[in-house]
């Protein structure tokens, strides 16, 4: 009985993760600009992969393999933002016409409040 519940929970998590990855791929084609595409990719990097790993942890059960997967998740969550940040910085620094692609709002120029309402 426990095995069946573990199998069902694991499968549910992995299927949800797969669905997130499919949406991510669709988003990569749907968006035209690199920074927007990165946002689509971030869905899979941060949430899709975690759902898949949690699903696998259910399959392995209370074992060291599950703990290994937890360490993989921690490592991914620490390293993935760094690489995303580097790619985004490269685009922002090399694109001379960044303001044509995306609006730029500076909150530090003495104006307080919400950037969206200005």
């Amino acid at each position, binding site marked *: 009985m426990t095995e069946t519940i573990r199998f069902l929970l694991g499968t549910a998590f992995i299927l949800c993760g797969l669905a*997130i990855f499919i*949406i991510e791929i*669709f*988003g990569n084609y*749907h*968006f035209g*600009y690199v*920074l*927007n595409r*990165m*946002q*689509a990719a*971030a*869905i899979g990097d*941060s*949430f899709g992969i975690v759902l898949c790993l949690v699903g696998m942890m259910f399959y392995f059960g209370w074992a*060291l393999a599950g*703990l*290994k997967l937890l*360490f993989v998740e921690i490592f991914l*969550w*620490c390293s*993935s*933002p*760094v690489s*995303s*940040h580097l790619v*985004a*910085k490269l685009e*922002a620094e090399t694109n001379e016409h*960044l303001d044509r*692609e*995306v*609006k*730029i*709002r*500076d*909150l*530090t120029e003495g104006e307080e409040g*919400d*950037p*969206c309402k200005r």
Partner: protein
Amino acid sequence: MFFFLFALWIVFNGRVTAETVLLGLLFAAAIFTFACRFLDYSLAKEKKIFILAPLLLRYLGVLIAEIVKSTFTACRFILSPSLPHDPLICKFRTPLKSEAALACLANSITLTPGTITISLDDGLFTVHCLDKSMAEGIADSRFVQLLQRIEEVAL
């Protein structure tokens, strides 16, 4: 850090025997001593992590909740071609002082789908948002409030 290193040793070994535990304790102690001597670690800082543990766990909870929430928002923008999205690059400062808190906030913003930290220079954040609604209250988010509390306790 000592406990983290020891846990890492046990996990990579894949089995718990007296030999692996003793060797793990020895190597974890050796690496921790090295870190204290050359990498600005100390026992006092280790103790602080235990004091901060409830706040750090709460931060992790908020991070996971924000990731789940933002994933659904971002998925909505991807799956609804008719739903217009208005990308925005937003620059802002936060009241955070320590470099660790600033780096933690930058990583949390990037981990949350829909927002990416482009740069962090002298406390000035430059963040790309998939839609302007995602930039609402970004300079005073729950992340910032919790990190401020962590800073107050730690400093």
